[in-house]
């Protein structure tokens, strides 16, 4: 029996086939989704902010520390580093009229996640990012496919 596990904000979950992992209602948050097709180990970290402060108790909240932790823990759990591929979902600009620098945090989250993955040598093979609307991401660890659901657009699979 496969099980669907929901990954909340600032949470990280790693699992094996046939389980599914889901991030529901991603706005400016980014789901960094990493998968090893050879062992069918998959993981998601659901990050809220881009860069962690020097003293940081919750690495899963930030794109840089969260992505690093996800990759290293997946390797600890038996995933093969050279097989890892990543997909990015989220990073929308939800409120464009706000006079807040944080209104652009979605783009920053994506930028930092991409840079960190590049530094780690994990290629980004697909993404559903940016724009002004939220979405949910559901990863199937059997295939590594990610299903994207949004409020008003058709379902797509990446």
């Amino acid at each position, binding site marked *: 029996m496969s099980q669907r596990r929901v990954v909340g904000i600032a949470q990280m979950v790693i699992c094996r086939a046939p389980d599914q992992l889901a991030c*529901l*209602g991603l*706005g400016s948050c980014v789901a960094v989704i990493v998968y090893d097709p050879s062992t069918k180990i998959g993981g998601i970290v659901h990050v*809220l902010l881009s860069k962690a402060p020097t003293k940081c108790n919750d690495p899963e909240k930030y794109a840089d520390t969260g992505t690093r932790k996800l990759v290293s823990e997946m390797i600890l759990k038996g995933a093969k580093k050279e097989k890892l591929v990543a997909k990015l979902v989220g990073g929308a600009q939800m*409120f464009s*009229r706000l006079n*807040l620098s944080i209104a652009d*945090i979605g783009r920053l989250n994506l930028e930092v996640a991409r840079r960190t993955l590049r530094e780690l040598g994990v290629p980004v093979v697909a993404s559903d990012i940016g724009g002004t609307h939220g979405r949910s991401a559901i990863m199937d660890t059997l295939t590594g496919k990610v299903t994207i659901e*949004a*409020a008003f657009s058709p379902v797509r699979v990446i």
Partner: protein
Amino acid sequence: MADRYDERVIEVIKEFASIGAGNAATALSSLLDLELMNEVTSAKIVPLSEVPMWLGGPEKVVACSYTYLCGELRSGVLAILPDDSATMLLKHLTKQEVDLSAITKLQLSALQEVGNICLCWYLMAVSKMIHIDMIPAPPDATVDLLGAVLDIPLANLGAKVDNVLAVHTSFRALEKEFEGYFLMLPEEATFNLILERMGVPKK
């Protein structure tokens, strides 16, 4: 959660909620040109992690207006309408058919105005009650998944929020009925200050 706060605090939150929501309803009445009755059906302190479930799940489609306080107090403030309530309200306001999946510029602008009025009048009442200025930034509104609209308010406070003052209110006018939520996401210091000003003794 409830056991962390005594009944006195809950009473204070209810008072705060009904005065704020009542004021917002009055403002909304004149905008809609309707005699609007409102009733606060629930007011409580909800842990942040339970907010999406309390409002019907992170994938529920809502119309959300968001602002934040500038100045002494640090808090995000949201007015949220479930999709059916938002549709009804916009239909009445714009005298047009409304499809939230293809919302027009005019309709979005009307929604932003509704949010602006509700939030400002809500805060005005609360501000008078606790004798602290609450100066909201110009709000913005959008229609989207509930989980998605909560991201920016959370990111803005760096997720330094544990307690959400959550208010559910139902509005009635003629044969129409709709519902809305007010959420305040105060930083801890702001939350404590509000309680103190409302006369809740410090623990």
